[in-house]
């Protein structure tokens, strides 16, 4: 009767797309709490402190630098968390996309939407 495998090597199991979406939602949540929130507090402080610090901030974000890429990436992580979050809310509230294929395609859709919008935002800021 008990046909379940006793030994499971997790490294040999391929992560399903829906599990990828779920785990990256959690990881992005951790990233937002520990990195994006301090970054946005820093930006909010400098953008409202004085006109000089506001102009310096706008200039340093518009030119490619570590600070600029890091800041935009941090906000894109938040954007990814929002997109996967909406996907989860559709499942939690309306039971939409809970099937195996539904969750697979919605994960792919969210990932592609995020990648495309990320490219668009980087292009929009730096060009």
């Amino acid at each position, binding site marked *: 009767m008990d046909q379940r495998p006793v030994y499971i090597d997790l490294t040999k199991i391929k992560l399903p797309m829906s599990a990828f979406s779920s785990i990256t939602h959690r990881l992005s949540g951790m990233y937002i709490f520990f990195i994006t929130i301090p970054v946005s507090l820093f930006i909010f402080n400098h953008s409202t402190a004085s006109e000089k610090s506001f102009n310096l901030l706008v200039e340093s974000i518009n030119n490619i630098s570590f600070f600029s890429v890091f800041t935009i990436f941090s906000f894109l992580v938040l954007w990814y968390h929002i997109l996967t*979050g909406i996907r989860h809310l559709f499942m939690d509230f309306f039971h939409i996309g809970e099937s195996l294929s539904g969750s697979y395609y919605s994960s792919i859709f969210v990932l592609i939407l995020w990648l495309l919008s990320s490219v668009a935002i980087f292009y929009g800021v730096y060009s």
Partner: protein
Amino acid sequence: MATKFSCNILWCLFMRGSLIWRAQRYSSLIIFTYFIYVACFIFSSDIMSFDIWTNFALSAQLKIATSLVFMLLLLHAFIGLWTVGTDYLTSRTLGFLNGSLGRKAKLLRSLYYLLFVLMGLLYTVVILYILWL
């Protein structure tokens, strides 16, 4: 015995799974609305100057909204971080990586809770300081 009983009442009132589940989902909707509102303002204005930005961000309405939404954000984050802690920082999951690590799971989880609560309090002090002082 009496303290244990009162703790149980508090536990039943606030630490109900369904209540926490709803609090996280509904708070996310309010935070999302706030983000959309602020993002629409930033992306809709052609020229962004210091005066336009501070007139918007430091107006009384938005200062109140930001403070309230930040509290909801902390609630949302605490629930999420707590869920991640109870899922992964357990003797079973950590013990999967390392046996001695697994035996320290409860301590590590408590330290992790302490860390994010302290970080949350620090963020609150900073945002309220920037907004109101």
